[in-house]
């Protein structure tokens, strides 16, 4: 490597050819992908987990992780069964009250929830509003197509609103659980609820790589920015870079997952994750879980009583 190979001349040449180090007044267009990727990484990290919030002294933080998991599951199932928008709004309001009682800033919390909604429901909701998917009374006509009136229908809008409300309540419930529980406790409680060991392991790994991967994404974006010279970039080039980075990231994820697993093995991990001991279930835990389940039944029952 050192013998024979000589440093190429261009590398040793001075910087005479480089453009002058001056401001031209023209702004560089920030690459859309660059911004989205960086922002997304930050948001996901902030939104999903916060050991800091989990350590605050609030209502949900005080409850046992297993209890929270069961209670949230009950409410989640109820949310899935409800068919009236007001009931769903009521459930959503409940999650806000719980968030406030758990010392989570409401604005911060709502922003996280509404950020995820398009991700989960945009694909279904957007087309459902139109008359050719959900036929019915057109409330917002958009024109004619093959002799039919095309537009947003009342039925379409209602079902879209229903989906959005349902997704908002569900995401809020899940976030309440993940934000107020330390991740290792959460995984361990999944195990106590007879979720297969393999699945829990995979979840645990996924969580760990997420952070390292998010770091990698941010680093790759930064590294690319450091090497970007041209002021204008083609969409195509940008897309090529995005898919290339995606590939590199996948390779990285794989190599890393192997090493993380080895690091766990090296410290005595033998397939079953051992946790420090569970605290005892207290009266307040029992009361909370019963309240949640009763509430879930009440909500579904009330919803049915309102008719279809």
């Amino acid at each position, binding site marked *: 490597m050192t013998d024979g190979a000589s440093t190429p001349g261009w590398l040793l040449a001075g910087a005479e050819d480089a453009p002058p180090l001056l401001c031209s007044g023209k702004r560089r267009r920030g690459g859309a992908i660059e911004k989205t990727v960086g922002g997304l990484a930050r948001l996901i990290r902030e939104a999903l987990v916060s050991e800091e919030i989990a350590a605050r002294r609030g209502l949900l933080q005080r409850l046992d992780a297993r209890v929270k998991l069961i209670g949230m599951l009950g409410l989640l199932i109820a949310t899935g069964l409800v068919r009236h928008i007001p009931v769903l709004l009521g459930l959503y309001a409940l999650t806000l009250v719980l968030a406030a009682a758990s010392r989570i800033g409401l604005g911060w919390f709502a922003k996280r929830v509404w950020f995820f909604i398009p991700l989960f429901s945009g694909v279904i909701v957007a087309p459902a509003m139109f008359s050719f998917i959900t036929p019915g009374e057109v409330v917002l006509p958009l024109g004619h197509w093959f002799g039919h009136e095309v537009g947003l229908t009342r039925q379409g809008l209602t079902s879209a609103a229903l989906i959005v409300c349902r997704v908002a309540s569900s995401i809020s419930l899940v976030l309440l659980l993940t934000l107020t529980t330390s991740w290792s406790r959460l995984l361990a409680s999944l195990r106590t609820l007879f979720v297969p060991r393999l699945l829990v392991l995979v979840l645990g790994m996924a969580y760990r790589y997420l952070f390292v991967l998010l770091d990698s994404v941010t680093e790759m974006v930064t590294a690319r920015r450091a090497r970007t010279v041209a002021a204008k970039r083609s969409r195509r080039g940008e897309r090529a870079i995005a898919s290339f980075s995606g590939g590199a990231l996948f390779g990285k994820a794989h190599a890393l997952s192997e090493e*993380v697993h080895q690091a766990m093995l090296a410290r005595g991990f033998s397939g079953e994750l051992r946790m*420090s*001991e569970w605290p005892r279930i207290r009266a307040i835990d029992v009361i909370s879980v019963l309240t949640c389940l009763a509430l879930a039944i009440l909500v579904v029952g009330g919803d049915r009583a309102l008719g279809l």
Partner: protein
Amino acid sequence: MRSGSESLLIGEGLSYAYLERFPALEKVSLEVSRGERLALLGANGCGKSTLLKILAGLIFPDHGSYRAFGEEVSAERLEDEQFSAAFRTRVGFVFQNTDAQVFSPTVREEIAFGPLQLGLAPAEIEGRVAEVTQMLEIGDLIERAPYQLSAGQKKRVAIASVLVMSPELLLFDEPTAGLDPRSRGWLLELIDELGRAGKTIVFATHELAELEWIADRCLVLSEDHRPLAEGAPAELLADRELLLRANLIHEHAHRHGAVLHSHPHERGHHGRAG
């Protein structure tokens, strides 16, 4: 497991290829006695990390045999619960890639991970965690998440998480890479101290300057993944031709010796040569 045998580790004719395609180790043999400090030297990609992983029982050689603590180490034997717990307690491994090693949500959980897996009592674990964090001066980081730490701090956490299990054999993969001079000095002193406390230490390094301080013996690997030389640090460092062949120093090192390697030993060697 038997103890008291002269050689703690015996590897014979170890070969390994990743995905059966990329050779990483070719017929390497080594013997490490109890309490010895062995340095693995070689250019990037020569197979140091691979060899350490074999010694840690994380990957298994395609050819050759490996015995540790007087017992054969194989994938099959490590499937055995008792054997694997006993082996993992005795062997600690500090990875080259700290990110791979530091995976728990908080520093405290990270350090407690190993002892928990080995089933130590909670009170015992708590005491050990407190002591080891104090020793490594990371007491005030204990509630933080690993991704909120600097590279050097993460390294300390990684080392703490291994030392807390008090292994007999310590494997370090490029321990001082990426550390500032003060942390580097601190870590070398720590390794030296562990060695004097009777721990057996095998470490990979590129830092020739550190060798004489913390190694009793060196094993040099060539770029085609074979053993190139073996001997005391002073001997090897004096063999300029060998160091060049192993790509451990640059051809022009003698001209800029003081700049490239500013440690006393090489300068001494340079003085003799010139």
